[in-house]
Every structure is written in C-alpha cells, then in structure tokens.
C-alpha cells in the first residue's frame, strides 16, 4: 500500500498550510504569504488526489467499476476531506477570500488525524459488496460529499459569525475581508448551494435502495440521519427565505445541521455499534 505515503504527505502538508494560513490571518494578510499558502494547498491537494487516483485505478483493475475511493471507512474519511479541500479551493478561487483558510484546512487535518487511528491493515482497498455494484453508488455518494463539503464551509462561517458577534475585536484581519453580515450571507449561500445536492443525494439513495432491495426507505439509521440532515437544512432555508431569519439564530441552526452531518457521516457507525442496531450501511 505505497499509496498511503501519498495521503500521509498530503496530511502533513495540510498541517503546514493550516499554520501558514494562520500566520497570514494573524499578521495583516501579507499578499506573498497568501500566494504561498494557496500554492502549498494545491500541492497538498495534488498528493491527496494522487492517492485517490491510485485507488480508482485499483478498483478499475480489480472490478472493472469506475469508483471514487470511498469504499472503506478510511477511504470515505479521505474522500470527505478531499471534497472539503476541493470546494474550498473553488471558493477561494471565486471569492478571492483567503481568511477562511486556517479554519477550512484545519478540518481536513483533524479528520485525517482521526483516520490515522484506523489500523494500517484496514486502510487498504475493500472488496466491493454486491449491493454496491451499481452506477447509483457514484451518483449518490458524490452528491452527498459535495453537499457535506459545502456544509462544512457554512459551519465554519457560522462559528466565525458567532465569535465575531461575541468578541468584535477578535481577528481584525477578518473584518477587512468580510463583515459579520457578509459572513452570515456567505454561510447562507453555501447552505443554499449544498441543499439541492443533498436533496439529490438522498433521493438517489432512495431510488438505488428501491432498485437493489425493493424499498425506497427502510428507516435504516444512516438513511434516517440523512433525512434528519435534510429536515434541518430545509428548516434553515425555509426560515431564512420566508421569515428573513438570519444572524445568531440562523447560525445556531447551521451549527446543529453540521453536527447532524457529522453524526450521519461518522457517528452512525458508533450509534449502530453502541445501541446494537442493524444497519445496511455499516460498511461505510
């Protein structure tokens, strides 16, 4: 499993990038340092991508299925962080705002650190279960991961908004880039961007379950928590659009939504084990 070296390098580079972005934010947003941060992030992302490509190649060679690397738990964590970095790079490219860098890249650093707790022998590629051999796998999972990545950015915005509201003097460099209202609006936009992907992902999963097992919805813990995620973000958007909800209350719901995302993605496996439940999704 030489490819594990690639993700290891990527992880270490993400740590360096997080620190550099922190310095960038703390010391007056030096332009050169900003460029260095972005370039280094791209290099780290290239290593991360190379790990993914190696796994895609492996799955293609062994199963003749084009699969993104999210079959094992380790791969799923890796792909989750890869999606976050991808969406963040797109975000930085479009908005030219770099001040979220230390917070955004810190999340992949933490998740990849968590993935290091998985024993090395379990980080290899997995056998593809028969139920997973479907074109719906990529469709469903990709849509979910894109939404999760955007929700992560929205979550960071919500936390920053609350911090800026509670401690107005904190991180003055942030004020120069965005006002608290600007952060709040950005957070809303990220959720709104992600919501159709989440909707599509949940529905694609239901259609796939119908094709594989003959039932759209079995109230499996993973399905149920995905539904709860959808409900919470639906409430957020509904309140924001119809009742002009914004500011602290919106940020709180946003944070709750992200906690539920984490439960759906990572926590359900622990819930299933702890409460001794049955789930058809425990392979992820």
């Amino acid at each position, binding site marked *: 499993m030489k490819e594990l070296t690639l993700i290891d390098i990527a992880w270490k580079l993400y740590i360096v990038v997080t620190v550099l972005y922190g310095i960038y934010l703390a010391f007056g947003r030096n332009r050169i340092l900003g460029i260095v941060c972005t370039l280094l992030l791209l290099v780290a992302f290239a290593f991360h991508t190379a790990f993914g490509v190696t796994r895609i190649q492996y799955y293609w060679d062994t199963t003749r299925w084009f699969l993104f690397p999210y079959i094992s738990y380790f791969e799923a964590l890796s792909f989750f962080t890869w999606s976050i970095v991808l969406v963040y790079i797109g975000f930085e490219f479009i908005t030219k705002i770099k001040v979220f860098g230390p917070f955004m890249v810190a999340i992949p650093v933490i998740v990849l650190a968590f993935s290091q707790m998985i024993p090395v022998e379990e980080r290899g590629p997995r056998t593809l279960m*028969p139920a997973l051999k479907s074109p719906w796998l990529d469709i469903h999972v990709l849509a979910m991961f894109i939404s999760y990545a955007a929700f992560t950015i929205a979550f960071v915005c919500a936390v920053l908004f609350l911090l800026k509201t509670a401690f107005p003097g904190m991180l003055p460099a942030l004020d120069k880039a965005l006002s608290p209202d600007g952060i709040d609006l950005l957070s809303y936009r990220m959720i709104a961007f992600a919501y159709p992907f989440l909707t599509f992902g949940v529905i694609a999963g239901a259609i796939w379950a119908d094709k594989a097992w003959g039932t759209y919805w079995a109230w499996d813990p993973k399905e149920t928590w995905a539904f709860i995620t959808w409900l*919470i973000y639906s409430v957020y958007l509904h309140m924001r659009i119809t009742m002009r909800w914004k500011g602290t209350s919106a940020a709180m719901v946003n944070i709750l939504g992200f906690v539920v995302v984490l439960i759906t993605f990572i926590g359900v496996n622990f819930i299933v084990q702890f409460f001794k439940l049955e789930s058809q999704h425990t392979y992820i």
Partner: protein
Amino acid sequence: MILAILSAVGTLVPQNAELTDYIAKYGLQKYRILKGLGFTDIYHSWYFIGVFLWLTVSSIYCSTTRLKRTFDEQFNPKISYRRRFLENLPFFREIHLRESADPERIRDFLRAKGFVTRNEQEMTPDGPRHSIFAQRGMIRKWALVVLHFSIVFVFVGGALRSILGIDGSVAVRDGTKETLTVKMGGGYSGMFKYVLPDFALEQYVLDLKSFYIRYVKRETPPAFVSDQPPEVQELFRYELDDYVSDLTIINEGKTEKKLVRVNHPFIINGMVFYQNAFNMFVPVIFRAGDQEREVLVQNDRPFQITMEGVRFLDQEPPDPNVGFYFTLSQTVAGRLFNHDTKKEILVPPMSIFRVIDLNTGQPLFLRVISSENWIKLGEGSSRVSVRLGDKVENASIFSYKKDPGTPVIYFGFIFIILGAAITIYTNRNQIFISSEGRLLLYGTRIQGLFLAPEPLFDQFSGEFGIEDPEKEA
C-alpha cells in the same frame, strides 16, 4: 423539527427486534415503558404517522395558496404603484428623465433584457401616470410551487404503496418450485376494504434451477491471511462478486427466465423480484472414535461439536468443556467465476473452518475443510475428525413487490430535485416603475441565492435619464 426528533429516537432503540433481545438489553420493566411509548416501532406509531399526515396537510395548504399567488403574479399582477410602495422596495431610485416618459420605449428596453412587461395608465390632475411592471425569472416562483406539490406526491405515492401495494419475501430451495399467491390491497383493512375493489388473486410460480455465489479471483490473497497456511490463502483469493439465482417465473401463462442478481431484479407483469438473501446449509460429517455423524450447519452460524452432537450457539449455551467453537464461512460449493479468464470452474464443496476460542471470541486458527479430506481437531478425549458432505443445499430468498405508488413517487422525486435546484440557483427580478411627466420612480425586488447587484439600473438611467436632479440642472 418534531419529525427530526422522533426519527432520531428510532435510531437509538432497536426497531421491531425480538422480545428476548429487548428484555436482555433493557429488562422487562424498561421494555414495557419503551413499548408503551411506541419506541419499539416508532415509524409505525400513531403519533409518527400523525406528524406525517400533518406535514402532508400543511404541504397541500402551502402548495395551493402558493399556486394561487403565483398564478396571480404571472397572469394578473397588480399594476399601479404609489411612491410609498416603491420606496419600501429593497432597491429604489428616483430618476429625472431627459424628456417625458414613453412607456412603450421603456417596455421595449426591458423586453430586450428578457423581461415580460405590463403597463397601465391612469389620469391624475397633473396629467397621465404610467405604471410599468416587468419581471424576469418567474420560473423560480413556479419551481417553488412545484417543489411543495412534489413533496405531496411522494406522500401520496407512499400511501398508495401501503394501501394497495404487495410486498414480502419468499424462499426457494435449489431445484424446487414455490407458488406465490398474492393480491393487490391484500393487506388493507378498516374502511379501505369497503371502499376499494376486490382485486383478483395473482399467482407466480418460482422455479429455482440453482443459486450460487459468484467469486472473482484476486491476484494475491488479502493481507490479513498472510500468516495462514497456503490453502487458506488460496481460498481467500476468491472474493465475493455477486449472489446469483437462475430463476424461471410463470405468471398468467407467461414464462420468463433470468439470472437474478443484486441490483438486477426480475420484473414480470409489474411484479419485481429482488435477490435479497440466501441460506446455505452445509453438511458436516464428524467422526469421534467409532461414531460418525452428519449434521447440517449454516454459513456463519456458530456451532460446537461435542461427543453428544452439535450445539448451535444461538440456540443453546456452549459446552465449557470443549473450549472452542466453529463457524463456516466463504463456503464454495459450485461455480467459481474467474473474471480474468472468463472461465467457470466447478469445485467440490469446500469452506473456511474458523476455530474460535470460547472465552475470548478470537479465532484460534483457520483451516480449509472440504468434502475430500478429513481434518483433525481437538485433543485427547475430545478429538474429532471433520469433513464436509458431498452436497450443499442452498435456498435463495427473494423479496418481491408490486407498487402502484412507484410512478407517483418517482414523479415526486424528479420534481423535488428540479424544484429545489431551480428555486435556489435562479433569480427572480421584478421591476416596478411609475412615471409622471419627466419624473420616474424605479423600484426593484430580486429574489434568489446569488443576488447580483442591480446592474440594470445603471443601464436604465444611462438610457433614459439621470438620477441626480442637481446634475441635470
């Protein structure tokens, strides 16, 4: 939010589990409380269904009121604007035109920008006053209506399924036939049996030629068996590829044959059969001294061989004198399929025999067991020789369904996605203009996620006049 909380409760308490499991986990007292609250089958409890019904009714109400409002805004908008209304819009400007307003010219300008326009003229003591309404992106408004209606469609489809649909599962053993007799709405009760017609019985004959597990051969065995004997490593090179049933179904004089696999169901006259599960019964022959016995065990079902016979550990407690128990897994009893060579290979029944420590639950060792040679287990008086029998019995389990709600649900699904995407990714732009002589009041309302600044106003004022009266002077 109530629905979210209730749904979450269902993921913390096992649903529809065996009574013995509940009692073992919670004790009788707590189980009674959970049962009384409906937490052991929360998704079918009256209050959960009630919340769904409430959501359906509110979605219907919301959809119909939105429909009426949207219809009016599209076809019958209010066109006569006073200054106070315009000033309260998110964007408002007052423009002094170079010459008196020409409503047709203004409408032409807005039409060229993709707006649909309407105007109205009324006479005032100071002369004619023109009101112009222009809007672009009404699809966003309609998408929101469609989104709300689609949710109702999904609920209706689900209700159709639960009232009229057929579903269940059927097991068929290798080389045998099973007759399945069902009818639509067979499960409905209460008022439905008086309201709905009595549907005809439907009969399906399922003829299973064979069930087998298909494998693909890896180039190397997985790393976790690297310290195992070569024959174990060799068998682990075969990885599960698919579950396959060679099935023929007869219905209404129609006979169809198909290899049913996971994700590849069998559809006949609207009834769908899915490869759902299987049972593999493996004969194990064991010899202890002069005695020889044959027992049927199941894949992955733990058992213990003692001098008295076989104990299945999910039915009775283990014999502590034996010290270990067994499971059979990766049983190969028929076709192997090597995708590299595309060649089918028939093998005698063989399996991985896991010997597991009774106290720790950890595997002691793995052995390949087959129908062709005996393996020796245990020591002293508990020494036994074991091999597999010559024939493995399989039963394939199919789930089936006939669901008149499917098209309705799919329709709902498609339009929920379209509705959400269009609502969020498109903008709606409304322009309200009121002009009297050379004075023009311009107001805009933009709805949408990615709100662009108001570039149109600059173009508009550039085309028709200047905003600042002082500059004009």
